[in-house]
């Protein structure tokens, strides 16, 4: 089967590779390029764990072939933080709101929220909450994720009551 030469930018670094046509972008990012922050859950577009940014847009990397990313700029969760130990605002907010437990779905959630909040203008709460329907989380019950999304849309929330 055919092999294809691709050239793409991942987290600001140029990559050249030779890939089989059937290789998905998520498997390329993990297996070939080493970005294991891309989590592969269902492999058929249902769970959202593998979400990355392609040319600034949140997409499911299991629903795209690596060869289709030729010439694109890809950002994975590894590319978000500025590298000085500080978290990206989306990561920080999810942490503060306990928006994760096992963390498997988290890189995908982070990438969708990061993609939608990167512009000058804050997205509406509705936009962010609706976009979260593209992610399945089996631990949190979504309330922490929801609070983080609302805060990222600029809402001020009352603290969660402490039942301890």
């Amino acid at each position, binding site marked *: 089967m055919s092999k294809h030469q691709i050239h793409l930018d991942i987290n600001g670094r140029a990559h050249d590779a030779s890939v089989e046509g059937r290789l998905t972008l998520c498997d390329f990012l993990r297996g070939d390029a080493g970005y294991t922050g891309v989590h592969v859950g269902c492999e*058929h577009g249902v769970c*959202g764990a593998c*979400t990355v940014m392609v040319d600034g847009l949140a997409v499911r990397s299991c629903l795209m072939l690596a060869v289709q990313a030729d010439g694109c700029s890809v950002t994975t969760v590894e590319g978000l933080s500025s590298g000085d130990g500080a978290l990206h605002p989306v990561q920080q907010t999810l942490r503060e709101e306990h928006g994760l437990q096992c963390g498997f779905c988290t890189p995908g959630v982070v990438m969708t929220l990061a993609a939608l909040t990167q512009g000058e203008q804050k997205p509406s709460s509705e936009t962010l909450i609706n976009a979260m329907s*593209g992610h399945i989380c089996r631990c949190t019950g979504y309330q922490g994720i929801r609070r983080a999304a609302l805060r990222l849309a600029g809402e001020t929330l009352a603290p969660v009551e402490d039942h301890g």
Partner: protein
Amino acid sequence: MKPAPFDYYAPSTIEEACGLLAEAGGGATILAGGQTLMPLLALRMSQPFLLVDINRIAALKGISRSAGSTRIGPITRQNEAIADATLGSAQPLLVTAVKHVGHHQTRNRGTIGGSIALGEPAAELPATAVALGASVEVRSAKRGKRRIAAEELYLGPYATALEFDELVTDIHVPEWPTGTRWMFRELAQRPGDFALVGLTGAITVQDGKVSRAGLAWFGMGPTPIKARQAEAALLGQSLDQLDHAAIAELAVADTAPFDDHHATSEYRRTVGRRMFARALRETLEAKA
């Protein structure tokens, strides 16, 4: 799972793509946004020996208006369609329908043409194309161009009138006159799911009477279903004399819903009746 091996080509012209499809003699599959095809490949429900990726064909992009019609390039991304100002003013019903397709993340890749050409019976865009009287222009290497009305396009679940060597090159959606009201309703278990029951349509009102109606169901049979009896019953009627429940009954009479693990056909009919009657009332009461 991983897709089975295939050859992959990403042509840059329509001619090249049609040539590849013809040469493959039915063994090729067209890759547009991939938001349905990629899962089918991963599950190995689809195993083409050749994938023709049309995403690099510039002629398949773009949105334009001329002579009462909107032309949509089939590989226009669903989220591009939502953000497009031209489409927003010329085709508000279509934009509303697109907002219900999949999730934000899949709409960034998924295309208008891909959804229309696939023919999933519970999907929003095929039914909306039928309701609005849209048509697709297709091209094949051997037989050239032809145009297929959306109404004639859908033969069964995922089965369309498209031949294996044909590529959709344009989607033409007629622009409905001033005084048209739009209705779109969808019942689904979760946002992004396919509809259990869906209704989409346009009703033009002139001088207090219905002058034109295009209504279609999705999720109510093996294809999108045009509510012909309800359309006929609405024509010429005064808004203040409409029997909403009776017209809803006619609309449901044209459907052929099925039982599945989500809902029975009787449930779909019951919801459909109420959905239609309420949507009709709300749509016609609202100011145009």
